[in-house]
């Protein structure tokens, strides 16, 4: 069980977190290889900071966008007097190396590819794609599924944010055992992003389901069909589609109960509040506090995945300023 002692430097710097997750977890973190793609985003900077501080084995950054005053307004890792010759990944890597010299941090050459090489992603334990167009998210999810690499994709737009997690099949133990009992291992199975986005509405419980689930569904369909993200002008069209999906779901429920009225708790026709939809489609710039919250929860997830400790988010997490609630939804 005991592989090697932590070095003295590690023990001193990591003391406070060792008291949270223990030495064994720290050793597992120290061996993990993480890739973050999309360093123009504040969420990426937040996650990179959080997991670099936690002490992973290696952290690779991918984004060839050249540094410029407006390239990455939410990325606090890039100094105001950046070198124009550097990419956002290179500038971020430099700051992260100073932040935790115990972690190997590299800015990888090249940019974020529309069609990632499966082999390339397979070299990592965890891949996180941030603020990417949907078709790219789907391509990464597929490539990571082929190599059994844990995949995350995150978006932070205005007052709304969410991430998706695909661990394929993941074994985990609880963070705390009930006094003295051995830790029970559990297996969690995940769904590809593509099918998660097509989750049948009939199965959703309107009372508990986060309203962003409905908004994200119609916006995703729109983006894949039109090749662009919807804008405020498209809101009516999206609302129409939401109603259509709700009616379909109601019809399916009605088919199950041919001679009775629809049961209580059946999805209503107007399931998607207009203001929720509007928040999602108008969200343009990242709001730093929203990215900080999402980046904190997401980094915790990466640490859980790598250490196999703690029940992972399966498979969407939503956080918005509408209500300050951070909720997990299992879709697909």
């Amino acid at each position: 069980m005991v592989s090697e002692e932590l070095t003295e430097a590690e023990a001193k710097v990591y003391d406070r977190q060792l008291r949270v997750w223990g030495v064994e977890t720290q050793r597992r973190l120290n061996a993990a290889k993480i890739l973050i793609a999309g360093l123009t985003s504040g969420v990426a900077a937040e996650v990179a900071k959080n997991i670099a501080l936690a002490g992973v084995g290696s952290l690779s950054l991918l984004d060839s966008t050249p540094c410029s005053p407006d390239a990455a307004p939410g990325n606090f890792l890039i100094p105001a007097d950046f070198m124009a010759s550097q990419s956002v990944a290179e500038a971020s890597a430099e700051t992260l190396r100073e932040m935790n010299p115990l972690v190997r941090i590299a800015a990888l050459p090249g940019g974020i590819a529309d069609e990632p090489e499966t082999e390339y992603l397979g070299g990592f334990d965890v891949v996180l794609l941030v603020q990417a167009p949907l078709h790219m998210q789907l391509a990464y999810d597929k490539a990571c599924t082929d190599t059994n690499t844990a995949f995350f994709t995150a978006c932070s737009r205005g007052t709304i944010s969410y991430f998706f997690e695909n661990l394929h099949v993941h074994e985990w133990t609880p963070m705390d055992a009930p006094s003295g009992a051995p830790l029970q291992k559990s297996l969690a199975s995940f769904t590809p992003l593509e099918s998660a986005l097509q989750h049948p509405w009939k199965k959703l419980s309107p009372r508990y389901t986060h309203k962003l689930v409905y908004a994200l569904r119609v916006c995703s369909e729109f983006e894949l069909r039109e090749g662009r993200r919807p804008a405020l002008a498209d809101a009516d069209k999206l609302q129409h589609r939401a109603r259509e999906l709700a009616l379909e779901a109601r019809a399916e429920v009605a088919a199950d109960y041919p001679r009775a009225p629809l049961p209580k708790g059946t999805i209503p026709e107007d399931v998607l509040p207009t203001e929720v939809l509007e928040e999602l489609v108008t969200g343009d710039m990242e709001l730093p506090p929203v990215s900080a919250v999402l980046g904190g929860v997401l980094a915790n997830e990466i640490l859980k995945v790598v250490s196999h400790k703690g029940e992972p988010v399966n498979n969407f997490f939503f956080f918005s300023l509408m209500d300050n609630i951070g909720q997990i939804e299992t879709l697909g």
Partner: protein
Amino acid sequence: MTLSSRWPSVATSSQLKEKMRNAKVLCVGAGGIGCELLKTLVLTGFEDITVIDMDTIETSNLNRQFLFRKHHVGTSKARVAADAVRVFRPNANITVYQGNVKESRFDKTFFGGFALVLNGLDNVEARRHVNRLCLSAGVPLIESGTEGYLGQVTVHYRLKNEAGEMQYATECFECAPKQSRTKTYPVCTIRNTPDKPIHCIVWAKELLFARLFGRPDVMTDLDEAAAKEEGADANGDAADGHNATAFLRGPDEPAEAYARRIFCRVFDEDIVKVLSMEELWEAREKPKPLQLARCLGDGGSADQNGALQGAHQAATGESACKALGITGAYRIWSLAECAKVLIESIRQYLEGRPAEVGEAVFDKEDDLAVEFVTAAANLRAANYNIPQQSLFVTKGMAGNIIHAIATTNAVVGGLIVVEAMKLLASKPENSRATFILKHVTNPKAKRLLNAIAPGEPSPKCAACGTARLELLIDTSKTCLDDLVNKVLKKSLSLVEPTVRTDAGFEYEEGEGLDEDEVAVNKAKLPLPLDQQAGGGLKHSTVMYVEDQVQEFHVQVEICHKNDWDEEQDPEGFRIGGSVPQAAAKAVDTAGSSDAASPSAGIQSDDDDDLVIINGPAAKEGHEDDDVVSIGEPEVSQAAVVGTLPQAEGNLSKRSADGDIDGPRKRQRGA
């Protein structure tokens, strides 16, 4: 409402951006939460920020206080944090104060100059102090706390409309009772009958360490109790002995011989003595003396000149383990290792740090001190058949270390800024108390962050309401000094208390007194309460207690109570709340779960992150003659002294709504 004036749409509006750019905000604390908060504030567009922090950077901060680097260790947190955020936002105008927020320069006028106060503090006393100043200056306060995976952000304000009428009011920080991590232990448990690892660690740190290396003229709590107890019984010198001469090193005594003598005295002879107090062992397992030679193995006593490996080298005073070649902070040492580390750490202290001996204070960042306490606590645990602990765990328990990770602080920093934005956007109706959970608690609505509307102000709150407190205390045995220091300063968090009664008793502290007045007030301190001027502070006397800096005032009614049970109430007093103007009634001492107990703060903790603040108040740390106080990493198991009356109801109500969060739930169960 138009799209842009509604929350949350207004969060991205240019009007709010302008307000954020111009708002003067005060950040109290530049530690775990403070670093995250500062970063998110400047990224969001706040440009006029003042930071107060008294601390300097330590190595163990670097795993989460991401604005600091290794070469900053030892320098001011506030200053380095401000410089670090200017690297990515040079336009941020950050004013830095390296100091304690309780200093008098940070008064009502100072606080009144800010639009918002944002707390990232690490102790309850300072947070109460800031709460009272915010109340008196009328500035909204956003409070926060984290511990491990748990965290929370709460909002506290009284907002008036243009006509000067109260429009929005939330509970203040002190309306709900606060959990403290400090715990007290009856002195006889520590001295004679320990049964938990923490008892051994308290003994090693507060008693043995202090006795061997601390100031000889300072009696520890344990000494005093021992002296009292043993005054009438010369043979009662049990487990430590106030007979301090036994612990003095002879003029020509070699350090290692002295160390061996100490070992024999405390782990062997004292245990033999305590075994002779037969009444102690009627219902307890008897302790077993440890022989040094047996602990060390064969070679232990053979070489009187220092058989310990490594002990021939000159002592550097750095580390006993290094000198001995003993490694493994996370495993439990063998008895032989404990004995060797004990002896070698004493030698290292005496020979390697001679100037410190007689002056030393336990510091959890001092390797040698931690090694000594670990070895001594484990040897004592062996005496009493108590599970032993690794150096790592011992260090946490002895140093009252708060568990802390970067991610929770980052989320909390973000949530503070969210609440700040709502207040600047004039959307107080959207304010939320937000809780970060470790696990999903409701399988239907699987939440990792939960949010509820802020609580209502409690009319019975001592800080913002009209509470009259009841103080149960022995008025003939307690002197004014204890009332002032233990009750008013420690337990009620006043900084410069003033006490008056209708009958003419007066006690004052603080600036503005001349020398004569200071002397007159000082002279009152050693006298028992019932012998004070104005007929004494006796049963049913009402004291008017005030702190001018905090603008805090409360009536405290005294209820005399003698014959305290030391096991139940090691501190020898209780504070309870009562309905204003209610008839004086003695609090039921058997189970006064309705009595108020504004909590005492975290003791000896150093760290910049904080504790979860909601939940019933646990018994607090009172540095009484008869108790040893120490923080414990786990939630205190001490008896609940009391909660502010309203709070328990609030908790149950929220619980019934299914909106209960992890931290509260956990503490309800504690």
